[in-house]
């Protein structure tokens, strides 16, 4: 147990590194497997102090559903933004707004901020863990309250349930 913890402090990261390495070299040989294994052990060890305590995924099915929803939203929102970009500039209403956080865990908060940035039309600019809010810039925000409520319902509530935090 302790040896495993010392050698592989982040088993998930190790598996991800090994998998990505094999995918990138696109050759399943003993050499690439060995090289991937070495990287899978070394990279987590060298980056160990960087990793925050990651909460466990408690609801994997919900996590998959959230992932699909985010993918769908990326496609949908791309059309929306493409229309805004090509339409008359005077019609868009860019503005900053603060998204109050119900999430305490910094890892999950970062995940939420990344989802906000990936779904086009919103970019998270700053995470303030002390004031517990994410500073968001929206490309076209008609109603600030509605935008905040949408992000909270679509992404934050599922994240809270997935990680139970």
């Amino acid at each position, binding site marked *: 147990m302790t040896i495993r913890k010392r050698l592989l402090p982040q088993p998930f990261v190790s598996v991800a590194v090994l998998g990505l390495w094999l995918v990138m070299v696109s050759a399943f040989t003993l050499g690439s497997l060995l090289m991937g294994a070495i990287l899978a052990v070394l990279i987590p060890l060298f980056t160990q102090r960087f990793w925050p305590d990651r909460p466990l995924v408690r609801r994997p099915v919900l996590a998959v559903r959230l992932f699909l929803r985010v993918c769908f939203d990326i496609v949908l929102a791309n059309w929306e933004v493409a229309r805004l970009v090509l339409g008359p500039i005077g019609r868009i209403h860019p503005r900053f707004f603060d998204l109050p956080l119900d999430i305490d865990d910094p890892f999950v908060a970062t995940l939420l901020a*990344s989802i906000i*940035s990936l779904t086009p039309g919103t*970019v998270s600019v700053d995470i303030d863990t002390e004031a517990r809010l994410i500073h968001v810039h929206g490309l076209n925000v008609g109603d600030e309250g509605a935008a905040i409520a949408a992000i909270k319902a679509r992404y934050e509530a599922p994240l809270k349930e997935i990680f139970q935090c």
Partner: protein
Amino acid sequence: MMEATLSEVVVSVLLLVGAGFALVGSIGLARMPDFFTRMHAPTKATTLGVGAIVVASLVFHSSSGGGLSLRELAISLFLFITAPLVGHLLGKAALRGTRKD
């Protein structure tokens, strides 16, 4: 033969869609009035634009007999990880800069 042409059509459509969104991203970069609205353009070009081109590459290489090619999935994964980081850092830097002025 029929199969080959079908995959060719799919690849062509995906390439056009991808290139179209990359173009829209660039147009947005040029047309938007200030830094923060411009910041939105790169996130668009990478997500759907590069996403579609990467899927096109995946379909092309898988259908041309190379077996299922997974390298493209790694590319899109890296893009999806790095795009929000870049947007975040750009925005944060710009915000600090304007506050100090």
